[in-house]
């Protein structure tokens, strides 16, 4: 589904990613871990097409297409979803309105008719149940005066609505208490199918107790320095990132 080959990227002369290689297949969950500043969020942003980052080398193939050549909105329409670490406020625009606009833009791109109000509401009701979100939240201004937990839950609701092929969760666990974490993780798990894939970007292992990854990759100084299964995450939790750092220095 996703083939990242030797990606180098950075901002103005400062390189952040220094040759990332990663392949994600349908049905898989990959966790990307690493200390602060290792490039985790940059990788997520590069995949989503944020312009702040310049890709200087390498290629990304998504469902057989050249991802890096696509505009950010087309990447979304092709099925890439980024759950933001810091979801953005849009005053006066409700989640309902936002999702209706987004969904119909995506449908238009795929040559489908726009959903009428009734079908949209039916779909929304179904997804509300799935991710356990308070309906009243959805008619409020998007992310405005939302608590940290509400913002993240709203991201997962949007993910449920848009049914992406590849979801990238960028530090979705940050700022969540344990109950909110469980609800968010449950939502993500329910959305898993054999056809879609998830990349979970996180600093801590605890999210991975709920969203169990097939693979864990450790990012350090813009490179994947270690890959393994979920046991690697446990080991990291136990030994801390200094373990990776010292190992790298030895090498």
């Amino acid at each position, binding site marked *: 589904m996703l083939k990242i080959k030797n990606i180098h990227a950075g901002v103005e002369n400062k390189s952040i990613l220094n040759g990332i290689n990663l392949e994600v297949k349908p049905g898989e969950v990959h966790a990307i871990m690493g200390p602060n500043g290792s490039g985790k969020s940059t990788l997520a942003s590069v995949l989503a097409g944020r312009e702040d980052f310049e890709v200087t080398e390498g290629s990304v193939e998504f469902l057989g297409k050249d991802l890096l050549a696509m505009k950010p909105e087309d990447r979304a*329409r092709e099925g890439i979803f980024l759950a933001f670490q810091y979801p953005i406020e849009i005053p*006066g*625009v409700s989640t309902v309105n936002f999702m209706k606009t987004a969904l119909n833009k995506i449908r238009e791109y795929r040559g489908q008719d726009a959903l009428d109000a009734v079908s949209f509401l039916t779909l929304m009701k179904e997804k509300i149940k799935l991710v356990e979100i308070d309906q009243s939240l959805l008619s409020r201004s998007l992310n405005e005066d939302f608590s940290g937990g509400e913002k993240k839950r709203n991201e997962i609701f949007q993910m449920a609505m848009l049914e992406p092929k590849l979801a990238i969760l960028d530090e979705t666990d940050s700022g969540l208490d344990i109950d909110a974490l469980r609800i968010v993780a449950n939502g993500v798990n329910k959305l898993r199918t054999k056809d879609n894939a998830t990349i979970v970007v996180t600093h801590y292992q605890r999210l991975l107790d709920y969203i169990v990854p097939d693979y864990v990759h450790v990012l350090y100084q813009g490179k994947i320095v270690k890959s393994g299964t979920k046991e690697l995450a446990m080991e990291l939790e136990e030994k801390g990132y200094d373990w990776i750092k010292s190992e790298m220095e030895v090498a």
Partner: protein
Amino acid sequence: MSKDNQVLEEFSSKEYEHGWSIDLESDSAPKGLSEEIVRFISLKKNEPEWLLEWRLKAFRHWLTMKEPKWPNVKYPPIDYQDIIYYSAPKQKVQPKNLSEVDPELIETFKKLGISLTEQKRLTGVAVDAVIDSISVATTFKEKLGELGIIFCSFSEAVREHPDLVKKYLGTVVPSNDNYYAALNSAVFSDGSFCYIPKGVRCPMELSTYFRINAANTGQFERTLIIAEEGSYVSYLEGCTAPMRDENQLHAAVVELYAMKSAEIKYSTVQNWYPGDKDGKGGIYNFVTKRGICAGDYSKISWTQVETGAAITWKYPSCILKGDYSNGEFYSVAVTNNYQQADTGTKMIHIGKHTRSRIVSKGISIGKSQNSYRGQVHILKRAENARNFSQCDSLLMGDQCGAHTFPYIDVENKSAHVEHEATTSKIGEDQIFYCLQRGIDEEAAIALIVNGYAKEVLKQLPMEFAVEAQKLLALTLEGSVG
């Protein structure tokens, strides 16, 4: 150049969608303005002597006045002698119903998306349509008539209800009020008249569409709305003008009169031709709108969505004379390319316990200049007056300007006056968030701007709110990134 600016440029390059014109044989006055022209207009309209005198008095006063220079707008001097002050579409017989109306006019309405027959059938909105200064069709009159509501063209009101017109004309906006009001008083061609009797709640939105048509024709509309004790009316005014290279002058006057416990809600969606992207052409919109809450507990609410005109000079105001009376002003003003807007309101608190609320949302794009100018005046006897003002500006790109000129005069210590102001830009983060959900930049900006203006848009009647949203999107098109 940042990405923002690029898209702004692309956005702004789209042409005016309503830019077409129809061929109506005009029965026009010769160019220029003189006592003779004033007499010509009055004669054309078979007006009574008193109205001619009223016009002439206004004209003579106008001669002594000077164009106001204080607005924050710039334009080449207007040659008032180079304007045609009267033109009427030719019609052989006075139409009794829509089928007798010139099909070309009907075609015009269809292009505007306001086919009268459709509107009549589907929405229950009575439309008094004005093309080039003459009312051509007034619908629903009979139904309204049963309730004693008068809704007709100004000319008809002069003929059929002279006492009412004579009693109220110029009582809210005197003929010597300002330069443009005086000009309008001298040469006004037609407009709308509305009278709601005591205790009657008007069962439908009353709606007028204005449209400037013949080239080089100034349009001078006059609207007078009288709401008797305990009555209610919601009035909608919408305008579009076809594309012209010459600048066209529009100097309208609107007067609202609310008696005890009466309520008038006046909504405007204005998209006069703003000129092209180089600032050529466009309407000069110099309008005087004012309402008086004459009786206790009365209320006047102005809502405006201003997206058009090369220059806008407009301050819908409320004189809060009655005790416990209430004035509101909700405004969205969008300027793009070289448009200039100087708009706002005046809230004059005279009565005790009077309240006013001002919500102004300016949006500046391209090389445009957008100014809010507002006055809150609490007079000495206005015990316990309250005002709340919120003035927000949204800037897109780095070549436009937003300005705020709030004037607050308080002569009574018991007054509470609050003023809040914000200036913001559409953030790249907001745009990216939308892009990542599959919403392209243009749609994202329309979405964000509609959200920003929501507090005002929600004041509009439903059908109008939808149209206003479309217009906002249309104005933003070719403008943003």
